[in-house]
C-alpha cells in the first residue's frame, strides 16, 4: 500500500476513535477533552487535504441518489465540525485561553452541545455512506466476500446503539431540550465509550441501509 493511502486510512481511523473519546467528555474531564478536540481539528484539516479531490469534483459529473446523499451529509458534517471548533475555542479553559472571549459563552455552549450530538449522527452517516471506500482496501488485501461475521457484529453494535441512544436520551441534546449533559454516575464509565461508538454504528448501519435501498431503486428503474 502506498504511504499516502496508509496515512489517509490512519487519519480516518484516528478521527473515528477520537470522536468517541470526545463524546465521553463527562468521563475524561475538560482538559483531555480540549486537547483531543484540538488534535481532532488538525486531523480534520489533514483529512481534507488528503481528500481534496472531493472539493475539486463537486461541480463535475453526474449526481445520482447516492452521491447526493453523500454530498449533503459531507457538507453538513463540514459545517458541524466548524461549529464545534469555533464554539469549542470560545468555551476553552485550557488550550485557547490566550484568545479573548468574544460573544456569549452560554450561546457557544448551546451550539457546542447541539453540534456534538448531531456530529455523532452525521459522522455515523458519513461512515455508512462511504463504507465502500472504507472496505475497498480490505477487499483488495483479502479479496472476495467477508462472510456474515462483520455484518453480524455491525448489526449487534447498531442494535445496542439504539438502546444506548434511548438510555442517554440523546433526543434531548439533538433538540436542545437539555442544555447540560446528564451523566449517570452509577453507570460504569468505560461503557460511555462503547455506548457512543455503538450509536455511531447505528447511524452508519442506517446510512448503509438507505444506500442499498437507493441502489435497488436505481437498478430497478434502469431495467429496460
Amino acid at each position, binding site marked *: 500500500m502506498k504511504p499516502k493511502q496508509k496515512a489517509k486510512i490512519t487519519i480516518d481511523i484516528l478521527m473515528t476513535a477520537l470522536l468517541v473519546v470526545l463524546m465521553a467528555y*463527562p*468521563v*475524561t*474531564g475538560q*482538559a*483531555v477533552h480540549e486537547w483531543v478536540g484540538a488534535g481532532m481539528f488538525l486531523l480534520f484539516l489533514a483529512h481534507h487535504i488528503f481528500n481534496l479531490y472531493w472539493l475539486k469534483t463537486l461541480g463535475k459529473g453526474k449526481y445520482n441518489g447516492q452521491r447526493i446523499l453523500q454530498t449533503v451529509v459531507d457538507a453538513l458534517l463540514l459545517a458541524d465540525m466548524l461549529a464545534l471548533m469555533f464554539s469549542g475555542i470560545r*468555551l*476553552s*479553559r485550557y488550550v485557547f*485561553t490566550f484568545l479573548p*472571549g468574544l460573544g*456569549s*459563552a*452560554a450561546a457557544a*455552549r448551546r451550539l457546542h452541545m447541539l453540534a456534538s450530538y448531531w456530529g455523532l449522527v452525521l459522522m455515523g452517516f458519513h461512515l455508512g455512506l462511504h463504507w465502500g471506500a472504507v472496505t475497498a482496501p480490505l477487499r483488495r488485501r483479502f479479496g472476495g466476500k467477508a462472510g*456474515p461475521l462483520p*455484518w*453480524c*457484529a455491525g*448489526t*449487534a*453494535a447498531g*442494535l*445496542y446503539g439504539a*438502546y444506548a441512544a434511548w*438510555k442517554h436520551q440523546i433526543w434531548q441534546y439533538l433538540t436542545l431540550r*437539555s*442544555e*447540560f*449533559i*446528564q*451523566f*449517570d*454516575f*452509577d*453507570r*460504569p*464509565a*468505560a*461503557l460511555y465509550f*462503547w*455506548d457512543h461508538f455503538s450509536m455511531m454504528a447505528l447511524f452508519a448501519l442506517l446510512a448503509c441501509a438507505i444506500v442499498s435501498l437507493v441502489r435497488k431503486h436505481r437498478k430497478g428503474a434502469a431495467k429496460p
Partner: protein
Amino acid sequence: MKKKLSLIVALVLMLSLAACGSRSNSPGNTPPAANAPDTPPAGSAADPEPSGSAGTPDTLPAAAGDGGILIAYFGVPETDGTDTVANASRVATEGGVVGNCQFIAQAIRQAVGGDLFAIETVQEYPGTHQPLLDFAYEELRQNARPELSGEIENLDDYAVIFLGYPNWNADLPMPLYTFLETYDFSGKTIIPFVTHGGSGFSRTISTIQELQPNAAVLTDGLSISRGSVPNAAQEAMDWASEILG
C-alpha cells in the same frame, strides 16, 4: 438461512451487552444514607491533582457530635423566568421568595438546628438567566476568586458544616473556591448538598476534599434537581437527620 442465523447471533450479542451495562439508578437525586462507600468515577484517574485524603467516610465520625452545626449556602436567585415553576432557581415561601439552596438550608436547620450562613460576594451577579450563565462561565474560565463579603466569626464553635451550592458548569461556583480557600475546616466534617440542572454533584465533592484535605468530607451528599426543590423540604430534613445519626 445464513442471514437469519446472523441476525439471531446479533440479537444475542446486543442483549448480553445491554444486560452487562444497565444499572438501575437514574441521574439526579442521590439516595440518602447508603452504607456502601462511593467509588470514584473512572475519570478521576486522569486528574492532574490527586485527592488529598485516603478515604472519605459516608457517615459522621463520633467526635463531631460535640460541636455546633453551621449551615453555609451560596446561590444567585434569578429574577427572570416564571416564579417557582420547574427549573426556576428560587422558591416562594411564607417568608418570601428565597433561593433554592437557601430553601434547602432552612429545611436542614428545621430538622437539626444550627446556624445559617449565607456565602455572599462583594460583586453582584447578573440576575437574569443567560447573563448569569455567561458570567459564571467566564469566572470559571478565568479561575476567578470573587471576594467574599461577610465572615464566619466563630469558626471554632462548629464541628459540622453543611455546605450548599448550585452546580455551575459541572463545578463549584467560584465563590465556593474562595470560601474553601479562606477558611480552614481541619478536623471538622463537611456535608455537601447541591441543587442542579441534571449533573448532580459532578466532581464537586472531590474538589471540596482537595481544597480541605484535613476535613472529613461526607460523600453521601444531598442532590436535588432544581425543578424538585420546592417539594424537597421533607427529603432534606430526613436526609439531614439521618446523616447526623
